[in-house]
């Protein structure tokens, strides 16, 4: 199935929940609106000719340039992406889904953006989403146990956000 | 000064241990310490058995009583010893009552123990080391090898040994085995749910 036809098919099923696609990229991706993510994922997993039964990875990528001068040169607006790498063991195919989020929920600094959790679709999403939450600061709604996973539970901030400030002190340990 | 009688010396040593730790069992309220003192008291008792020439009974005391029964008991203690059950204080009234009754009983028993002259001091006996184990075994099987020279035919007929009690105990042990297995059978319960007491 060509990429174009595949996206057409998804659009037919999910309508405007498929917000875009990029075929020129090295790993072509499909953009999905947060609201339709779980449905799309379940469809991709269960459809007999797709069978994306394997979630490889969930990554959070933060697009933000603190330096205003450099930011002006960028061709993108600040946003956060959650990237889902899927593959299908029986069909030996792979797919990339992207969910594009605002950097802050309702543009209020400090409120983490939200995505519905896909733990119900792939159990492995549990830890991956915790890691993305921990490091990239994306809140997964509907996650059964959204705690920090790599950083200590009382850690402040999400280190992989580009505006992250390294704390100067943690429990009496000097930061730098 | 007379020479020290080593038999008496060892007797005193073990007797003091046995009595002291028995009293410690009563005194302490910590159940784990109680079990520990009981172990020592019973171990000392086995020493007394050895001194009295009852080697086999002494070894059995160590093997079965101390090594088996008490381990079971301590096992039970450890299963239940938590929080409030480790140290359960007895009420003062109970203690006084117990001490009173116990004291009276002790006086009675001590009086009885010291009344009979023949019991008080033993005659010097020749150094006889008996092998008791096999004679005990024969007695359990019904042959009283220590009473073979019984003259009185009526009494001699009564010397049929302990075969019947031995059998009764065996059956009893079997019943106990089955009974405890029944009592300790696995039960099912729900996590956090009601306990199935059936």
């Amino acid at each position, binding site marked *: 199935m060509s990429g174009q036809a595949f996206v057409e098919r998804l659009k037919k099923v999910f309508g405007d929940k498929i917000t875009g696609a990029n075929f020129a990229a090295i790993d072509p991706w499909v953009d999905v609106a947060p609201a339709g993510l779980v449905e799309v994922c379940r469809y991709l997993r269960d459809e007999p000719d797709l069978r994306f039964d394997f979630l490889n990875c969930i990554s959070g990528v933060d697009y933000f340039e603190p330096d205003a001068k450099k930011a002006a040169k960028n061709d993108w607006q600040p946003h956060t992406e959650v990237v889902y790498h899927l593959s299908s063991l029986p069909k030996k195919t792979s797919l990339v889904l992207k969910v594009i989020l605002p950097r802050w929920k309702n543009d209020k600094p400090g409120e983490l953006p939200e995505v519905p959790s896909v733990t119900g679709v*792939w159990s*492995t999403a*549990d830890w991956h989403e915790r*890691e993305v939450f921990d490091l990239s600061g994306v809140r997964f709604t509907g996650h059964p146990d959204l705690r920090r996973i790599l950083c200590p539970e009382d850690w402040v901030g999400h280190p992989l956000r580009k505006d992250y400030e390294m704390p100067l002190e943690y429990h009496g340990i000097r930061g730098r | 000064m007379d020479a020290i009688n080593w038999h008496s010396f060892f007797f005193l040593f073990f007797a003091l241990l046995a009595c002291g730790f028995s009293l410690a069992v009563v005194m302490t309220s910590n159940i784990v310490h109680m079990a520990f003192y009981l172990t020592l008291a019973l171990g000392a008792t086995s020493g007394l058995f050895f001194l009295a020439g009852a080697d086999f009974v002494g070894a059995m005391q160590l093997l079965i009583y101390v090594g088996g029964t008490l381990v079971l008991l301590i096992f039970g203690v450890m*299963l239940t010893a938590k929080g409030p059950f480790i140290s359960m204080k007895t009420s003062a009234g109970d203690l006084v009552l117990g001490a009173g009754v116990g004291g009276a009983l002790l006086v009675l028993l001590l009086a009885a123990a010291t009344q009979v002259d023949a019991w008080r001091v033993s005659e010097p006996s020749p150094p006889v080391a008996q092998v008791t184990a096999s004679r005990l075994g024969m007695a359990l099987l019904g042959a009283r090898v220590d009473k073979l020279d019984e003259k009185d035919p009526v009494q001699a007929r009564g010397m049929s040994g302990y075969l019947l009690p031995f059998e009764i105990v065996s059956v009893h042990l079997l019943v106990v085995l089955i009974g405890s297995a029944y009592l300790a059978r696995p039960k099912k319960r729900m996590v956090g749910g009601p306990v199935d007491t059936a």
Partner: protein
Amino acid sequence: MATQLDDPRIIEFDVRTDEMLVNMGPQHPSTHGVLRLVLRTDGEVVSEVTPHIGYLHRCAEKIGENLTARQWIPYTDRMDYLAGMNMNLGWALAVEKLMNLELPEKARHLRVLIVEMNRIASHLVGMGAYGLDLGTFSPFLYAFREREKILDLFEEVCGARLTYSYITVGGATADLPTGWIETCERFLAQLEPVIEEYHALLTTNAIFVRRTAGIGILSPEKAIDYGCTGPVLRGSGVDHDLRRDGEQRYTEMYDGYAFEVIVEKNGHYPKDHNYPAVPGSAVLGDCWHRFYVRMLEVMQSIDLVRQAIDRYSMATGSWGEPIKLTEKLPKGEAYLETEAPRGQMGFYVVSSGSGAIPWRVRARSSSFCNLSVTHDLCRGCLIADVPAIVGSLDIVMGEIDR
């Protein structure tokens, strides 16, 4: 006697024991580093296991956003520190995919050779450490004896024994030294019969079988659902190996190599060696199968190294030219997974196109996913089974915590 009752909420018990929370780790002999498992136990029966990780978190991804692609290579070494070469390869391939770099044939064979050698070393450690988890010490020392020889070979190649940084973007940092191939062949010839000893000590040992067979059964569906990869996935009977099923850029390394994916089909494993038979009590997906797949992969890798030696010696041309330390990365993003010893190691690199420093790097770790299934496997097992199960997943904390 893993008490696997139908309803997990029903506990069979002799004596009412209160549930007890026990901390296994982070300083515990059998947690392979600094893993902390919180066990909820009822007597010896474990009712719940909660893994807590992050004690070895070194912010590798954050560091990657401040270094160039080649500068980050040493940090990949420290992820799965038992298989540094495989980590190097994963990152190198991901960056090469982003840069659309093609490698000369000789470099590809060199990479296969080195990577499969490291797979042997890694599986040897996995095997030995699993012995330790089950309470036998000697296999560990035997495994280290052989691994030591591999490390000696690697030391000749790149000067390092653990953190190699040898395979790099664009090829490798150097060619193999002269005489290396012969030493390597001698080593392989010596290693092969030794594997038999390991099988005698562990695989077929009656106690070992009783400790592992039927314990921690991971169904293929669950393995896929939890994203388990590598020997853990294949131990569950899923026929999937990226060396055969992976992306073109990765599988072309293995083009023309003869190898069979180590997976049980119709009740037996591919039989091109004198493998011991599968014991009757073993169930597909249990600890024994995971261990066994690893053992067979050692043999497979020996085979692959031999083939790679042949091809490498025949191949002409360059062994590859590393890119400049500050080579500019094109704009774009690339994700690539390779088959590391512990499973699929994925690297995701995003570049804004503004310089040599990537915008975002991400490492998808195989042990991370493999470990996430622990709580499911350990439900209702005995305390002694917890090390057996965790050990059979063969995790490396450096890779999990990154």
